[in-house]
């Protein structure tokens, strides 16, 4: 692909020039940067190992006595490394990254609509929250029960998501990404509910 900025020799995907060892401009693609295949299901232990190894060689601390161009690339590379590690180690942000790249709209707005199958539960929950805010301590057990229910829903979503991850990795079907997107919206909605209940219960 590109030529080395320093010695002009042809470069592949490697971080350093094979000929003169100069640090190259890093790719902004997290998967390519980490050198792992673009899959939704990844080995996070392997990701962490790569993160530590790459930190050791790319961190700006290691480039203070090198050329200014390399210092700049080291800063860029390390920020991609850190940003990428943060995004890829978490299944939700990892899926969002893939969805965004595939051109899906993953705005917050969609997740603000109540999923139809949850309408009744959400209505009940809001009533109970209102009562608690009004000083009605008796509703606490009901809220705690609701919280448990939402937590188990979230756990179900998470295992369903893992199943869809594997399905997409095998088939590469765009329709599966659509399913994942809807699942993520549902998950975000439930997560927000849990946050709200936690706040009111003082957890």
């Amino acid at each position: 692909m590109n030529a080395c900025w320093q010695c002009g020799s042809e470069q592949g995907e490697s971080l350093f020039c094979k000929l003169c060892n100069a640090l190259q401009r890093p790719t902004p693609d997290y998967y390519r940067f980490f050198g792992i295949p673009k899959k939704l299901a990844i080995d996070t232990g392997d990701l962490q190992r790569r993160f530590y190894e790459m930190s050791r060689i790319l961190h700006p601390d290691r480039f203070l006595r090198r050329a200014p161009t390399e210092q700049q690339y080291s800063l860029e590379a390390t920020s991609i490394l850190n940003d990428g590690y943060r995004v890829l180690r978490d299944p939700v942000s990892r899926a969002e990254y893939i969805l965004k790249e595939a051109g899906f709209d993953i705005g917050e707005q969609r997740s603000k609509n109540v999923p139809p199958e949850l309408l009744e539960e959400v209505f009940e929950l809001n009533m109970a929250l209102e009562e608690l805010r009004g000083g009605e301590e008796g509703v606490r057990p009901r809220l705690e029960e609701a919280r448990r229910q939402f937590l188990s829903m979230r756990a179900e979503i998470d295992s369903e998501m893992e199943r869809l991850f594997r399905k997409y990795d095998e088939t590469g079907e765009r329709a599966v990404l659509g399913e994942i997107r809807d699942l993520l919206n549902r998950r975000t909605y439930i997560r927000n509910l849990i946050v709200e209940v936690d706040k009111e219960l003082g957890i």
Partner: protein
Amino acid sequence: MGGTFQIDFGHKKPRRVIGIDLGTTNSLAAVMEASAPKVIPGADGGKLVPSVVSISPGGEIAVGNPARELLLTQPERTVYSVKRLMGRGIADVEDELKLFPFRIAEGSESVIRLVVGEHILTPPEISALILRQLKKNAEAYLGEEIAQAVITVPAYFNDAQRQATKDAGRIAGLEVLRLVNEPTAAALAYGLDKRKEGIVAVYDLGGGTFDISILKLHEGIFEVLATNGDTHLGGDDIDNLLLRIALEDVASEWGQDVSGDHEAVQRLRRAVIQAKEELSFVPFTHIEVEYRGRHYRRRIDRELFDRLITPIVDRTLGPCRNAMLDAGVKPEDIDEVVLVGGSTRIPLVRSAVEKLFRARPHTELNPDEVVALGAAVQAAILSGDVEDKLLLDVTPLSLGIETMGGVVSKLIHRNSTIPASAAETFTTAVDGQRNVLIHVVQGERELAKDCRSLARFDLKDIEPLPAGMARIEVRFLIDANGILNVTARDLRTGKEQSVEVKPSYGLTEEQVEAMIVESFELAEADFKERQLREARVEADTILAAVDKARQSDAWFELSEQERASIDEEVNKLLLVYHAGDHLMIRNQIDALNQATLKLAEIMMNAAVRGALKGTKI
């Protein structure tokens, strides 16, 4: 074009990089010796340089212990705890101003300016004077010029406070290679990486700031998982609490409110600090002050002391819990706890920490020195002398931009490993719009007005297009120092887009440049004062010699005219003695020397004769 395997200019030894802990109460420098970091002593042999600066009417600068003495007699030209004002706006420090005798100059809206005697200086300039002293101490100790340093900052310092610290370094003539968070530096100093894997909590309660950091160790990598803190909590708060009590006591016992009397307040402050420090080792002590023939003495025991400071100690526990929450660890996951900062000598603090983390804290290293030692280790990492360690730190506060309705859109979340970045695309709202203003804030609150305003970035010279057509990608990058860098690119043309930065609090590039120049002038004044003092010492010597000669036989061997001419030159010297010009004194010393040549000759001959005779003259 140079190769990567760059030739080392063999004969030129790379210059040493020192580590500096620029503290609220004390500052100190350290350097990596053969295998371990070592604190650099000052000229007086002491390791701690009190963070106090005093400027004499002649412009002579005193830093450290000498300045601390002047705090009693010349409080109006002496400043301490200036770290509290670094990178802050006048509105943020209202509470400080009630408790600390800072004298704010007019025109302090965007940058605080302090009145120090005849000078008006910003907090970075005052900090620079402390840094310059440490630089001088290091140069004297190491016998080489020091031009580069690693400086530590509280982990919870925001962008403006970090930038102000970096500015202080530049004004002091130091290239700041890295700002390191104090708790992280402490972890480095402890060499905890010997235990390969583990979770460490660093609890840092200093003079003016509190930090808690949770780190994960992994084969020499110190990865900060989360940090939290309070940049307005420390030993100073305990001092102020005791001081208030002492002032009330004095008011009722002496029948006089001395809170407006600088000297009395400083003496009381010293007494309460001494009592506070003693109570870490003894069960009871006295706060005792003698002032203008009056006496104040109050017994204070540890039980009372503990009760008084419990609210302050409790204020540190919330941030500790939040840090553990953000790090995703429970108290039982913490393998080791490290204590940093002078205030962690207090037994109540120690027991609170032990109870919270369920681990006995490390106290082997001096809590006043451990941060500087760690800074020296980081300096050695940067210069390549230490290769098996690496710090991965985080940004303490979320970074966001103000959007419609004053709501903050978070771009980089708190506790993200740095360097970290985020990109956001902006467009125009009206046809032909040439500028877009972006307001960047730091903090966790939802509304921009509740967060800390960092800066306004003006995207300028946008190509005039119909509304919404321009596409400018702005990249926010927090570097390894925790400082924000912003770049912008026009996505249509791929061209670099110019960005003008207007910091909300802090100095512009031009102001820093000007201060670097001014600092040389101040150094010049310092130098002049020293020359003046030396000239006066020399004048004293010759005047004393002439006085002594008046009693000798030689004096009477001189002619009347010769004696008159000596008297005249003596009077002239006495006249210029108190003027502020060392050159005039030197010229007059020369004139007096000339006038006394014959006198000296006679005395010398008499001495020789006397010596030959074996008798004394």
